[in-house]
């Protein structure tokens, strides 16, 4: 389907009203945030702790295969919950209002090799502010994949289906080094000393994670070193695959758009909301899916309101959807198989040369948006 059929271009006056309606929804939700949300996130912390303890305990009995399987699954589950519903959301500052130093967006350190510090920069700032703007949002293909026809094709991309699988397995490592600009160093644009300096905190975090999961806990198990080690490796991989799938569904489905830098010129609040909508896609499903995806299944709401407690997205979603319908905007949602199917198709399709469609038109009266492709 073409973008014009999906989305009606809005006048700037319509955009202002669109933005004001979303702002009003935001204000109504902020007024409700309180005790209930605090109790919820504490329950999530509890679930993370208990599943981790149970998983690690079972792995100590990991010579017995059912214990190994259950232990690995529980540990993977714990890591997924910790990274997504807890870590990702806390780091956005969603729970800063609780004034709890253990749930503070600036200091929370999550259970993954990437540092929260780098994540705050690549994700909270670059990706959320410049969502899907080519050249500013490093999350477009993460610098290794060609997901959109607007990215320049190179023969190397023929191997992309293979890369994509390796990248999924090692996703946490990709995220960890995303902000360490290896490319600049390889091209000689950055000195070795500078690279070492940028890498130092990442190196420390990586060391801590490796020692914890691959040395300390296995050693603690004594004779059962191996089952614990393999269980930890598999749990980390399970988490990698799941987070990769959820995150890719958020921005790389079929109808998602990317934008040229020119959209930023005098971008209004309504325009910004519209860009978040057009650059994101949701996954439909039940409560379990929402919790396990850290509510990134509500990617659209998350991008519009990244600092509101994510558990509120579910109640905001129908309102957002209704507003979008009134303004003739596509609300991109679908089941996990459908959305991930579209992601896989994009990865396969754009490994081959492809040409961009006409550039997306966001507004009717701002000519810079209709920049040539």
């Amino acid at each position, binding site marked *: 389907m073409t973008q014009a059929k999906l989305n009606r271009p809005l006048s700037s006056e319509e955009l202002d009203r669109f933005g004001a309606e979303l702002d009003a929804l935001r204000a109504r939700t902020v007024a409700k945030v309180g005790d209930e949300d605090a109790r919820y996130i504490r329950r999530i912390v509890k679930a993370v702790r208990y599943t981790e303890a149970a998983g690690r305990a079972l792995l100590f009995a990991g010579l017995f295969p059912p214990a190994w399987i259950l232990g690995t699954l529980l540990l993977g589950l714990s890591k997924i919950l910790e990274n997504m519903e807890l870590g990702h959301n806390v780091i956005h500052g969603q729970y800063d209002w609780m004034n709890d130093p253990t749930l503070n967006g600036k200091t929370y350190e999550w259970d993954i090799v990437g540092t929260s510090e780098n994540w705050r920069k690549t994700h909270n700032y670059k990706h*959320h502010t410049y969502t899907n703007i080519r050249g500013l949002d490093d999350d477009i293909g993460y610098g290794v994949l060609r997901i959109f026809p607007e990215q320049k094709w190179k023969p190397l991309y023929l191997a992309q289906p293979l890369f994509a699988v390796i990248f999924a397995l090692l996703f946490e490592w990709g995220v960890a080094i995303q902000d360490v600009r290896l490319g600049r160093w390889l091209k000689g644009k950055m000195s070795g000393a500078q690279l070492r300096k940028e890498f130092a905190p990442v190196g420390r975090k990586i060391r801590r994670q490796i020692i914890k999961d691959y040395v300390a806990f296995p050693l603690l198990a004594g004779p059962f070193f191996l089952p614990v080690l393999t269980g930890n490796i598999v749990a980390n991989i399970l988490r990698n695959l799941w987070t990769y799938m959820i995150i890719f569904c958020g921005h790389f489905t079929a109808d998602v758009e990317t934008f040229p830098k020119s959209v930023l010129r005098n971008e209004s609040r309504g325009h910004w909301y519209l860009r978040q909508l057009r650059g994101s896609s949701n996954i439909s499903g039940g409560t379990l899916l929402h919790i396990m995806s850290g509510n990134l299944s509500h990617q659209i709401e998350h991008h519009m309101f990244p600092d509101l407690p994510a558990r509120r997205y579910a109640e905001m979603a129908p309102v957002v959807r209704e507003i979008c319908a009134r303004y003739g905007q596509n609300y991109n949602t679908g089941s996990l198989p459908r959305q991930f199917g579209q992601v896989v198709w994009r990865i396969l399709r754009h490994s081959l040369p492809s040409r961009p469609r006409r550039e997306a038109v966001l507004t009717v009266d701002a000519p810079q948006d209709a920049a040539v492709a």
Partner: protein
Amino acid sequence: MRRLLNPLIAPDVFDFWASKVNSTWSWERPLARIVARRPEAHGAVTLVLQPNRHFAGFVPGQHINVTAEIDGVRVTRSYSPTNIPAADRRVELTVKQIDGGRMSTHLIGHTQVGDVLELGPAFGEMTWPEAADGRWLLLAAGSGITPMMSLVRAWAAACMPGELTLVYTARTQAELCFAAELRELAAREPRFHLHLLLTRESDAFAGAPYTERGGRLDADWLQQRVPELAAHTVYACGPAGFVDSARQIAGNRAARFHAEAFTPPALVDDVAGTVRVELRASGRTLELPAGQSLLAALEAQGVHPAHGCRMGICNTCACGKLSGTTQDLNTGDRDAEPNSALRICVNRACSDLTLDL
């Protein structure tokens, strides 16, 4: 033990499990259990706290930031221990009920023996110096009696040299804290001079020693009761209004004057005005325009705090606000909560501020 555990478990995770065993066990956070409660006066309760080993203690006259969780939000307020440090390491706080007050209502109405509070390190300079001879005048109003009580108790316990005068203002007889103990000390110790002033009671209820009804601390009154003010070191503590008038009366005339206010400074409603912003971590204090976002105002002064989106979404610019009132430029909401997180790109100052920057 901590070195061994360090690679296995993060402090937060340790605290989670440790608190299941003992509610005041923690990796590094100073926590304290309420071990007793007693009414101190009408609308005032004394809480006796037993801190864990991470609390480093206090000196009489200092204050401690106390944190409690109220409706899911951790709220922090300062309180001044009223006891003196002893071998049992206990801390006694006397909390006065403030109408509509969040923390005081919680501490007085909703805490029980066994509950746990978090403590910060003790702070404040209103303490006894090494050589506390000479003459001392303590001026207290309302809950401002709390650090003074600790000072008086320390003075009495150590049989310190010199003369001590305490002027303690309360609204009514029933609201006086520690009245019996103070009167008893004044009767026993000739170098201790006590004046209890009641602003809302007239002479009709006369009777209690050292008590003046309908009295008010002003220059004439002080001149009569403490004629040699110039020979005194003066400490004053209470609501901001009281501290201001104490400063006017005694600030220039006393040998030395030090005051601490228990209520926040006035709000600047005029967006064209300026406020004083103290950057605690970098040790600077700046005069900033109140009308602008704090981020823009700081940048205009050559301070460049970390930031990203400049529109309140990425949380990069969030920093700790230690005290003061701010206003969200998008919603117009005001926030006077001390020790809370603040996004400086979308907030302006409405009062003098202290930021953890």
